[in-house]
C-alpha cells in the first residue's frame, strides 16, 4: 500500500511540475473563473435589452408582451459556460494527464529500471491510477471552490443550498467524464509506439465523442453544440434521427455529459426546476454509460500493463 501511495504522490508532484500541463491547467482555471462573469454580463445585458424592447413595443401600442424568459432562470444558469470549458479544455487536459503519466517513464527509460525493482507492474499501475485520480480530483475540487467563491463575490448570483448541491453533483459527474479521457490518454500511451500518435488518437476520439456523435444524434452543428443554451435541444423529428438516437445515442458520451449537466444546472428553459432526484433518475442510463466507458478504458489499461514487456520499450517521437 505504501508503494502505491509513494508512486501516486510522485505522479502528482511530477505532473504539477510540467510546464505544458501547467499552461493547460491555468487556461482551464482562468476560464472557469471567467465563466460566471461572462454568464452574469450576458444575462444582465439581455435583461436590459428585454426592458428596452418592452418600452419599444409599448410605445408602438403593443400590450400583450410575454414576460422576460430570463426571469425564470435561477442564478445557477450563470455557470452554464463551465460545462463547455470542461467539455473542451478539461477533456484535452485529461488526455494530456493520462498521456504524460505513462509516456514520461517510457521515454526517460525509467520504466525498465522500475520493473527490475521489487515492484510489480500491478503496483506501479495502481500507483499511477491513484496519482491520476488525485490530480484530477484536485483540479475539479479547485474549480468547484472557484465557482462557489465567485457566486459569493459577484452580484445576483447568490446560490442557495440546492444550487450548491447541484453544482457539486455536476463536478462529480465532470470528474468521471474527465477520468474517461484520462484513461483514454493512458491507454494509448501504453500501447502506441509513437509518442505523437499516442496523443493524436485520443484527440481524434475526443473530437468524435464531442462533435460527431452528438451531431448525428441531435442534428446540431459543432458550434451549436458549444452554445450552452442550445446544447440540450431535442433532436429534429424523422426516421433518420430516431435511428441515430436509438443506435448511437447510448454511446454518445459527450451528448450524455452536456445534456445531463444542462439539466442539472437548470440550463434549459423547458426543464427548469426539476428536482435533483428526478434529474438523476431520468439520467441514470447516461451516468451508467459514462462509468462503464471509464471502466472499460481502465480495464484495457490494466490488461495492457499486465502484458507489458520491457522488450517493447522503444518509443519514438
Amino acid at each position, binding site marked *: 500500500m505504501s508503494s502505491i501511495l509513494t508512486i501516486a504522490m510522485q505522479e502528482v508532484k511530477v505532473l504539477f511540475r510540467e*510546464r*505544458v500541463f501547467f*499552461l*493547460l491547467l491555468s*487556461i482551464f482555471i482562468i*476560464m472557469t473563473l471567467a465563466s460566471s462573469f*461572462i*454568464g452574469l454580463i*450576458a*444575462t444582465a*445585458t*439581455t435583461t*436590459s*435589452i*428585454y426592458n*428596452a*424592447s418592452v418600452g*419599444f*413595443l409599448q410605445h408602438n401600442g403593443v400590450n400583450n*408582451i*410575454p414576460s422576460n*424568459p*430570463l426571469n425564470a432562470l435561477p442564478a445557477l444558469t450563470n455557470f452554464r*459556460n463551465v460545462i*463547455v470549458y470542461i467539455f*473542451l*479544455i478539461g477533456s*484535452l487536459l485529461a488526455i*494530456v494527464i493520462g498521456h504524460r503519466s505513462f*509516456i514520461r517513464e517510457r521515454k526517460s527509460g525509467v520504466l525498465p529500471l522500475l520493473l527490475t525493482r521489487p515492484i510489480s507492474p500491478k503496483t506501479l499501475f495502481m500507483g499511477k491510477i491513484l496519482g491520476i485520480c488525485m490530480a484530477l480530483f484536485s483540479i475539479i475540487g479547485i474549480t468547484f471552490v472557484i465557482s462557489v467563491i465567485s457566486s459569493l463575490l459577484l452580484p445576483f448570483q447568490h446560490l442557495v443550498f440546492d444550487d450548491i448541491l447541484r453544482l457539486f453533483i455536476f463536478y462529480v459527474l465532470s470528474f468521471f467524464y474527465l477520468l474517461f479521457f484520462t484513461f483514454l490518454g493512458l491507454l494509448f500511451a501504453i500501447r502506441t509506439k509513437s*509518442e*505523437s*500518435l499516442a*496523443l*493524436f488518437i485520443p*484527440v*481524434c476520439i475526443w*473530437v468524435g465523442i464531442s*462533435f*460527431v456523435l452528438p*451531431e*448525428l444524434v441531435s*442534428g446540431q*452543428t*459543432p*458550434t451549436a453544440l*458549444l*452554445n*450552452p*443554451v*442550445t446544447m440540450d435541444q431535442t433532436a*429534429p*423529428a*424523422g426516421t*433518420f*434521427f430516431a435511428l441515430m438516437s436509438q443506435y448511437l445515442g447510448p454511446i454518445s458520451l459527450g451528448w450524455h455529459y452536456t445534456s445531463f449537466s444542462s439539466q442539472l444546472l437548470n440550463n434549459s*428553459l*423547458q426543464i427548469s426546476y426539476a428536482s435533483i432526484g428526478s434529474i438523476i433518475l431520468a439520467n441514470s442510463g447516461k451516468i451508467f454509460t459514462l462509468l462503464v466507458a471509464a471502466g472499460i478504458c481502465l480495464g484495457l489499461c490494466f490488461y495492457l500493463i499486465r502484458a507489458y514487456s520491457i522488450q517493447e520499450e522503444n518509443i*519514438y*517521437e
Partner: protein
Amino acid sequence: MNNAAKIFAVAKKEFTDALKNKVFLVFLAFLLFLIGTSIVVASFDFQSKVVVYQNALIKLKQSGQVVENLSEPQFFPLQLLRGAIEFLEIIGAILAIVLGYLSIAKEKGNNTLQLILTRPISRLSFYAGKFLGNALLLVSVAGIVFVGVTLVVEVVGKTMLTGPQLFRILLTFAFTIIYLLIFFSISAALSTLMKSLPNALIVSFVIWILFVLIIPQIGDTMDPDNQVPGGLFNSLHIIKADQLVILEKFSRYEKTRDSLEQTSLTKHYERLAFALLGIKDTYNGKSLDFVFHDKIGDVWWISLASILFGAAGAMMFVKKRMLWKEE
C-alpha cells in the same frame, strides 16, 4: 540545380511523404467522413423541418385558422454546407497542425536535417519547399473536398448546382486553404522553436482550442439573442429593423463582443465562408460584389495572418541555431 528546382524537389518530397503518412491519411479520411456526414445530417434536418411545416399547415387548416403567417422552409443547397464549413474550421485546422508538426518533426526526429543542411540548399529554400509542398497538399485536399461536397450536395439535395453556386464553393475553398495555412505555419513554427516535439504539439492544440473553439464560443454565448432558445427577439415578435433600433443603445456591449470575436481568425473565416455560401440569411441571394464589399475586413484578416504566420515560421526556421534534436 537552380533554387526554384531545389524548392520544388523538397515540395515534391513533402507531398509524397504526407501521402505515405498514416497519421495524415487517418485525419484526412476522418475529415472527409465528417464533412459528408454533416451534409447528410443537414439534409435530414431540412426534411424534418418540411414535415413539421406540413403537419402544422394541416392542423391549422383543419381548425380553420389563418395559414398565411406560416412560412414554408426554403431549400438553399449551399446552406447544407454549414456543418461542413464548421468541420473544416475545426478539424481542418487540426489537419493543418498535424501537417506542420510532421513536416518539422520528421526531420528533427530522424536527425536528417543536419545532413540536408550540409547540401547546397539554404535553410530558407528548404523551408519554402516544405511550405509549398504542404500548400499543394492542402490544395489537393480542398480539391477532393470540393468534388466530394458537390457530389454529396447534388445527390442528397436532389438538385444540380449552377455555375455561380460552384464558383462560390470554389472561392470558399480558396479561403479555406489560406485559413489552414495559418495553422500549418503556427504548428511548424512551434515545432521548430520548442525543444520537445510533443510539447510543441500540445501547445499547438492549446492555441487551436483557444482560438478555434473558446473565443468564438464566448462571443456566441455573449450574444443577447443567443440567451434564449429561439432568440429573444423572436420570442417578442420583433422584426429585424426594429431590433437594430433597440440594439443601438447597447452598441458598446456589441462592440466589445465583436472585438473579442475579431481576435479569432476562425471567426473571420467563418463569417466570410457563411457570407459567400449564403448560409447567413443576410447574404443569401446577394451578389459576390455585395459580399466582398461587406466582408473585405475578414478577407484582409485571414490573408494578412496567413502571410505573417508564414513569414514567422520561415524566419524561425532560418534563425534558430540548433534545429535538430539535441542529445
